[in-house]
């Protein structure tokens, strides 16, 4: 025992101490629920993770986003509920009437969640869903096909998360508001795994907020969400990143869409969390599918927000629409990488992508790569990208009407974000986000 502890101390000195820690903890000792099929998936995923290791900036997908400082630290892997009840006020959205689900460090808190019976809606901790039919069918079916080592790690060793199933033809009256709270008194590495399944013709709205408890210790959160939309299902999905500077996130979202389904993602990041990497991948697995991806990243301080999206047009007659806006202040960095694939024979595809950036901070940086890979000819695809600042003419016009420079800037940023915020279907969320944009300046 003593020897081991000594080795541990040594390992924290080297840059990939988390890697070593994970291998030591999980090699031959992966979490198990006694289900052979799941154990098998976990073992294979762990092997993949071991062979890939953590990514470096030499890898194209991580070129601008260095995870080495994050994984070079020592974390506790123990995600037991902290004592005391964390405050949720930072996640509250005025005027929003929603079912509330709270995950503390990835663990479902029945105490903090609203506990109502809603016909056709199943919400439970993921570890209670292992025996469900659609878990067996969809778990690790899509996200694990990507080469993201964090997904492999998550699949191998997650112990908590959320399972949602919206039954066939169920149209939820109220949105589901999921609040992810980071609350820890020691440096913590969490791994959350979510699976959301939308039955055929089902309609729902899921809003996810990320917050940090005041005074929480440094934490790194590796979350993977798999989302399946059956035929004709519709999902409105919001990410509201309002966590504190102690929190760091690796969020991988893998969406699989069946025929005639609609998936809208609204991905917003605000000043706070030191490191945010979102991977949002949408697989348009059948024809007549529609997806919209909207994003706003307003960054400040020394933040890094990296949004990587993939829209994969696999079948013909699909439509995707993507618009991301970044506003960087101070010494912060925003990264955008939008890949659109149009596969062979995915004819009659419409794919639109736009990325606009306002670089405001004297020492801030923007790295963007709007990327098209097209293998079919009867398609309409376009992308555009701009990087600019405040328009001096517009600033002068507003000031000449008596508006202070600071207020004029707020108005202009508000206007800049408008292309995206105006697409939010939920008015309460839209107002809340507009307010956060103003506040974040």
């Amino acid at each position: 025992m003593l020897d081991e502890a000594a080795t541990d101390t040594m390992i924290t000195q080297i840059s990939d101490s988390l890697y070593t820690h994970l291998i030591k903890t999980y090699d031959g000792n992966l979490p198990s629920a006694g289900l052979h099929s799941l154990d098998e998936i976990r073992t294979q995923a762990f092997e993949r993770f071991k062979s890939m290791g953590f990514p470096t900036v030499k890898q194209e997908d991580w070129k601008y986003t260095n995870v080495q400082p994050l994984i070079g630290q020592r974390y506790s892997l123990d995600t037991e509920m902290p004592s005391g009840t964390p405050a949720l006020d930072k996640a509250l959205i005025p005027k929003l009437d929603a079912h509330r689900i709270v995950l503390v460090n990835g663990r479902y808190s029945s105490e903090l969640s609203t506990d109502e019976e809603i016909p056709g809606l199943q919400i439970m901790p993921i570890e209670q869903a292992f025996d469900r039919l659609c878990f067996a069918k969809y778990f690790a079916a899509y996200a694990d096909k990507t080469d993201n080592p964090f997904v492999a790690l998550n699949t191998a060793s997650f112990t908590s998360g959320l399972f949602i199933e919206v039954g066939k033809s169920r149209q939820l009256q109220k949105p589901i508001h999921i609040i992810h709270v980071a609350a820890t008194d020691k440096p913590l590495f969490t791994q959350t795994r979510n699976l959301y399944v939308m039955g055929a013709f089902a309609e729902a709205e899921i809003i996810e907020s990320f917050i940090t408890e005041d005074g929480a210790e440094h934490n790194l959160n590796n979350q993977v969400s798999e989302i399946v939309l059956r035929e004709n299902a519709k999902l409105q999905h919001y990410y509201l990143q309002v966590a504190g500077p102690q929190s760091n996130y690796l969020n991988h979202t893998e969406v699989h869409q069946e025929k005639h389904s609609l998936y809208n993602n609204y991905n917003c990041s605000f000043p706070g969390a030191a490191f945010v990497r979102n991977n949002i991948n949408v697989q348009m697995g059948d024809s007549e599918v529609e997806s919209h991806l909207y994003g706003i990243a307003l960054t400040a301080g020394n933040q890094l927000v990296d949004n990587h999206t993939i829209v994969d047009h696999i079948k013909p007659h699909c439509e995707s629409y993507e618009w991301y806006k970044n506003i960087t202040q101070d010494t912060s960095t925003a990264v955008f990488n939008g890949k659109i694939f149009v596969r062979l024979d995915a004819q009659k595809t419409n794919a639109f992508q736009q990325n606009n950036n306002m670089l405001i901070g004297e020492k801030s940086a923007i790295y963007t790569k709007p990327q098209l890979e097209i293998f079919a000819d009867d398609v309409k695809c376009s992308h555009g990208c701009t990087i600019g600042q405040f328009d001096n003419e517009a600033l002068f016009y507003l000031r000449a009407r008596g508006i202070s420079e600071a207020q004029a800037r707020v108005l202009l940023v508000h206007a800049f974000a408008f292309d995206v915020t105006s697409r939010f279907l939920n008015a309460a969320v839209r107002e809340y986000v507009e307010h956060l944009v103003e506040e974040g300046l």
Partner: protein
Amino acid sequence: MLSIKNLHASVEDKAILKGLDLEVKAGEVHAIMGPNGSGKSTLGNVLAGREAYEVTEGEVLLDGSDLLALSPEDRAREGVFLAFQYPIEIPGVSNINFLKTALSEIRAYKGLPPMEARDFLKKVKEKQQLVEFDAKLANRSLNEGFSGGEKKRNEIFQLAMLEPKLAILDETDSGLDIDALRIVARGVNQLRADNNAFILITHYQRLLEYIVPDFVHVLYNGRIVRSGTKELALELEEKGYDWIKETVDA
């Protein structure tokens, strides 16, 4: 109200205004005419405080205090309004939100509380009618997709809403058809009062048929070379600017 003495201004080190003097009293309407490149628009921009325009000499007093020391927004709050020759389009900023912000900031500067929403909307409605400004336009993004005439009418609508002391209309008549010109002029005429003043910057006499000025000044080569009443404008119309150039240059 406004007192300009020996004003020299330059853009990118090129001298444009070269010793301009002008006195404007409350209740007056002054027209400033002149050939292209004489410095007409420069005057408007200098008074409103556009950054690229550098004042190299002279002074401008508004009710006795130094106007040139103020930021553009403080000039606006003190009551200087420039109706832009080319109003900018700002997509995403709604006309109404913009006006509400401007009005609130001007009121705050004067120590007044923000206007009640209902009073504000009443005022908007009233002033819209004054310049026949389509209510739909008022709810759209600032000048976005507006026609030339709609942009100019929006300038006058803002003028009506903000009720400035001194309004400078920079070639507001350019690009307007006769109907739009009449509407703009009627708006201005109704806003004329004992406690405000107007400076009309224009190339043509046409506008002055609808807004009758108390004084007409001819700007040439950065200075006012001739002043008179509205008859001077007619004379200019008849004889052309070459007449001025000849008499001045000679």
